[in-house]
């Protein structure tokens, strides 16, 4: 594989500055600098804080990735960068950095879609992606079901959240329960000691009439309100909040809907493989339930390790390497940032 192209990928769509280096489908380095601690006291990502952090972290993270990979910048054959979707100001830092690298090194640059990169990253861990596959992406900013026939060219949205993203729901419920930001890992942790059946929280968009119009869509805002209502009632009644039970019951409601719809999408679209990505894919209950339901439906499940599920540069490099391998044309130097880039645009021309 030493003659496969060496691709460096840059990710800056939210609060992680990620720089990854891959050769073909081999991961050589995945350097990430996160500004998450700076956002914690605000209970959410502050775009300007994230953008400033990207600027400070960019060159050191590029250098760290090259050092880890044992390559020099001048060895790089192609560059890839997230050009959307994400926070416009944050994306701008990464795109400008990638263009400067492309200019300095005289190599092609691929502006890529963040969601498609979340799918492509699994190639680094589990090899070529069987096509077609269904991908479930659940993070702080997205909750989507995608039908992937070619990760470099043909990714179609089957459904997405119509309000909050799954990770956002985890973060909001964590705050309600007095857990730190980002809340997903904490809810996951405390839920281990709770009873997932303690409270029957609603499963959004699963009623028969919703399934007609929103077969593969998600909704987590009603669930969030239901949990808030339950907690406030309990407080008003002077009861201590059974944090573990509430966390487990909330988590169960989220992962039940995510996995149920994902497996249905595989079955109904004849996809033999389900891939799960995004920060919420780190959730232990999501992994367990997905495994159980995929096994029952005869579907092969692919979930990258948690470090590759959250935002990182390796996923961008991985998609870039696929674009190079399939001979797709690079982007122009006047490539734009598109904060609401549709998932159907894998590569920005």
């Amino acid at each position, binding site marked *: 594989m030493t003659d496969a192209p060496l691709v460096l990928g840059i990710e800056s769509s939210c609060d992680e500055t990620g720089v990854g280096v891959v050769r073909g489908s081999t991961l050589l380095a995945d350097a990430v600098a996160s500004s998450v601690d700076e956002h914690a006291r605000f209970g959410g990502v502050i775009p300007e804080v994230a953008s400033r952090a990207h600027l400070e972290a960019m060159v050191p993270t590029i250098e760290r990735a090259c050092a880890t990979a044992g390559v020099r910048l001048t060895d790089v054959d192609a560059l890839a960068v997230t050009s959307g979707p994400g926070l416009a100001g944050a994306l*701008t830092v990464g795109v400008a950095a990638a263009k400067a690298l492309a200019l300095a090194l*005289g190599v092609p640059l691929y502006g890529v879609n963040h969601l498609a990169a979340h799918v492509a990253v699994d190639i680094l861990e589990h090899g070529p992606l069987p096509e077609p596959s269904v991908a479930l992406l659940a993070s702080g900013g997205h909750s989507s079901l995608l039908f992937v026939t070619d990760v470099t060219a043909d990714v179609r949205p089957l459904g997405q959240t119509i309000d909050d993203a799954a990770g956002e729901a985890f973060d909001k419920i964590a705050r309600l329960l007095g857990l730190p930001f980002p809340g997903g890992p904490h809810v996951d942790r405390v839920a281990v000691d709770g009873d997932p059946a303690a409270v029957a929280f609603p499963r959004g968009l699963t009623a028969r009439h919703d399934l007609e119009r929103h077969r593969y869509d998600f909704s987590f805002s009603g669930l969030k309100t239901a949990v808030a209502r339950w907690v406030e009632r309990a407080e008003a009644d002077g009861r201590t909040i059974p944090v573990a039970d509430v966390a487990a019951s909330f988590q169960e409601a989220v992962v039940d809907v995510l996995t149920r719809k994902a497996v249905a999408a595989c079955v109904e679209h004849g996809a033999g493989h389900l891939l799960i990505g995004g920060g919420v894919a780190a959730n232990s209950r999501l992994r367990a339930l997905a495994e159980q339901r995929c096994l029952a439906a005869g579907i092969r499940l692919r979930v990258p390790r948690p470090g590759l599920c959250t935002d990182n540069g390796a996923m961008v490099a991985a998609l870039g390497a696929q674009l190079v391998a399939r001979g797709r044309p690079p982007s122009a130097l006047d490539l734009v940032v598109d904060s609401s880039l549709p998932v159907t645009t894998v590569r920005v021309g």
Partner: protein
Amino acid sequence: MLLLALDTSGATVTAALHDGTSVIAERAVTNARRHAELLAPAIAAVLDDAGRDRTEITDIVVGVGPGPFTGLRVGVVTARVLGAALGVPVHGVCSLDGIAEDVSGTGDFLVATDARRREVYWAAYHRDADGAPPERRDGPHVSRPAEVPVAGRPVTGRGATLYPDDLGPAGEPFDVRAGALAALAARSLAGSGTAPTPVTLCSSEPMYLRRPDATPPGARKRVLT
């Protein structure tokens, strides 16, 4: 010496090459919202115009503002990454100093640019004699136009065009030119500054002058009414 200068602190995206003697190529495109799109092509264009190769660049000079944050960062990150990839030093220059460089005449004057939100970025300068570099004596600051201590001094830059009642009449130039930043930096690097305090190069740290807008969340909103 082949110095590449760039600035994205205002509405104009500008790049220039300076060979130690003079500016040999310069480009400017005005579009306040498309810095990230326009800067790299502008750099490629000045190299092309001058018939020089990127590997010949010896120094990078970047206007570090003050200016609107997202645009400003495009220039700074571009300069830093180019510097790292080409293995050459990166020098920062206050963008208002670049405008001052282009102001003709002697005596005291101000430079004011658009800081949005009904404010301006400004600094006060003094030039001793014709041909001498201007010396920054105050600033940069961010203020409401009415709070700038004009004191009869002429004001140049977009800030004066935008707020003529407080700062006008506006004198030229209105925007920073990368060529002016390059000339200023070339002089400073050559150590031939003749002003009492020659304009100093600084780090490539952006001059934000404002903190990010962010307020810690208040008490939890109740859903039960």
